[in-house]
């Protein structure tokens, strides 16, 4: 690898102060995404994947959290280098929507119900590119065509309630990509959609990614979706990255017991047998207020030993462009 990655998150820690104590939602997370590539960020609810993305957008304060430590270096086109964690808010506003854009899980509630969809796309374009009202409208129509909305000249004046969930998610994508950002954060963008629509939206994101040449941080809890879209995968558990590897390797040879459990619990990856139940990972993720001392997965792990419970295992570089946070990964992998 020659060029420095587009995005480099180093030792990010994001916390929430709750009435019941301080919660570390994202603990020492380091990730990087090269330009034009897709990183799949996988984990269950509460694992810290969405908080990671909100930290990147610096929108975490809205939900009551804050970034406590770490750097988030973004290298947008033009050879600049920005630390998002230290950027003043006005400059951060310019980055949002222009260099990093985001699409969300709930297309039904993500659009302003009293603005036409065309105006909502044009708003971004006018804000970041200072073009005229007329030009922005033309761009909105062009974007609607790009995301596959039929008769865009007519639909541009439609309001969100006139569109289906899938169509609204296309509009969200049109808004996000209207300024050709270098990085798109997609936070479970297909979770709320029908399976057939899911596939269409994934196709669309992939196609536009190739067109625009942007990197994608794709957040999901669905390993099937990851297999479709990601180049690389990072698995999060209880606020930490527990395994990171190229997508093919994750599926072929998962090294962390949690990743193995995740893969085993996908229906259809093993031949269905009526006498066998779908494997699950026993137990529950630990409460963020009361996490175990050592390895956070230890209470649910079949391989756990006293050494696992004694100290937090480091995220170890195991070669082949892979990392794993497990002191027994070699035994686990056999």
């Amino acid at each position, binding site marked *: 690898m020659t060029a420095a990655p587009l995005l480099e998150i180093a030792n990010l820690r994001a916390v929430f102060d709750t009435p019941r104590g301080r919660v570390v939602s994202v603990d020492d997370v380091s990730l990087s995404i090269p330009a034009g590539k897709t990183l799949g960020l996988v984990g269950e609810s509460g694992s810290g994947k969405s908080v990671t993305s909100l930290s990147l*957008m610096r*929108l975490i304060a*809205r939900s009551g959290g804050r970034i406590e430590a770490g750097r988030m270096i973004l290298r947008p086109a033009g050879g600049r280098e920005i630390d998002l964690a230290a950027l003043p808010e006005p400059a951060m*506003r*310019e*980055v*949002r*929507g*222009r260099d990093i*854009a*985001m699409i*969300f899980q*709930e297309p039904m*509630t*993500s*659009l*302003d*119900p*009293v*603005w*036409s969809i065309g105006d909502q796309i044009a*708003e*971004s374009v006018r*804000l*970041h590119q200072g073009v005229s009202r007329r030009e922005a409208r033309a761009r909105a129509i062009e974007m609607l065509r790009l995301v596959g909305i039929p008769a865009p000249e007519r639909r541009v004046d439609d*309001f969100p*309630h*006139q569109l289906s969930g899938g169509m609204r998610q296309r509009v*969200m994508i049109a*808004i996000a990509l209207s300024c050709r950002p270098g990085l798109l954060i997609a936070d479970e963008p297909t979770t709320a959609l029908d399976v057939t629509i899911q596939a269409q939206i994934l196709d669309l994101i992939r196609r536009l990614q190739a067109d625009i040449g942007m990197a994608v941080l794709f957040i999901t809890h669905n390993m099937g979706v990851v297999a479709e879209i990601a180049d690389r995968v990072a698995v999060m558990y209880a606020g930490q990255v527990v395994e990171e590897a190229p997508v093919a390797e994750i599926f072929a040879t998962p090294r962390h017991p949690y990743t193995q459990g995740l893969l085993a619990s996908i229906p259809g990856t093993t031949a269905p047998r009526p006498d066998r139940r779908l494997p699950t990972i026993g137990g529950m993720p630990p409460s963020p207020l009361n996490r175990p001392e050592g390895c956070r997965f230890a209470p649910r792990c079949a391989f756990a030993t006293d050494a696992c419970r004694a100290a937090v295992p480091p995220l170890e570089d195991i070669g082949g462009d892979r990392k794993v946070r497990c002191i027994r990964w070699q035994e686990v992998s056999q």
Partner: protein
Amino acid sequence: MVRFLAERIASAVLTVLGASILAFLVLRALPTDPARLIAGPFAKEDVLAEVRAQMGLNKPLVMQYVDYITSFLSGDWGFSYGAGKPVLPLIAERLPASAELALFSFVIALVAAVAFAVLVSYSRSRILDGILRAVSFVSVGVPPFWIALLLLMLFFETLGWFPGPVGRGPAPQHAITGFYTIDHLLAGNVSGALNALWHLALPGIALALGSFGYLVRLLRANLLDVVHEPFVTVLHSKGVPPVTTHFRHILPNAFLPTLTAAGMILAQLIGGSVLVEQIFTWPGIGTLVIDGVTRQDYAVVQAFILLSALIYIVVNLAVDLLYGYVDPRVRRS
């Protein structure tokens, strides 16, 4: 859209009919005999019978109602024995004074409610929010006539900044709209218009306070709801500045549900300023109604009840139609 309109108008007509039946029955149920009121306490029974026949009071109740409605629709709203005049012109000459006062206080209440609710929801200051909630709580609870007296004591008697309870001030030369402020302006008389505003100020504020308290509480709650909508996070993720987000996205969304309440308040203000008008000797329909009640001049009271209902219904109909215009979800469905 046509169906929407037809439905709303049909329901408005039904409501007016209901209100007219109510106004009609309430007065028929009173123990006083209108014939005796007119003919006097010493009138003989045959004279009373004649008066009753003249007034149609010997007909069946249903026929009396039909008479009442047809004459109401043809502009015959009865005769005020207290004023010695037909009721319709009596009300017509006094309605503009009440309407001007009501509209003025409505504008004050609405503008102040929007301003303070936006300030609190934008600043997210707990202290400001607490103050606003206390003020709105008190202003909804305190009767307007008492506020009117307080305002008079403070701003007229003590400070002398505003005129006392002397009504609307000098009338403009030509009555065009019946609103003194506008008629003065139309005549090019700016100082006259300002003087009319000066007279409107105290009764206007006294009336506005309760409506302000109600509207501001509603709008504040709506704003704080909308602030947490997912689409607001999306706007932030687009890099839209907070001020733009608040005024162009959050406020319109929060204001829509407030529209209905605002319409009801306007209608109530037009018909419901009786006591405040009395205190400021405002020559509106409020004072007329008080006179009507004390003199048992029922034609006036009856007309007032029906007129209030009519105004209420017309304003609400207007609000419904306005929804169809400003809310895209209603417009297209």
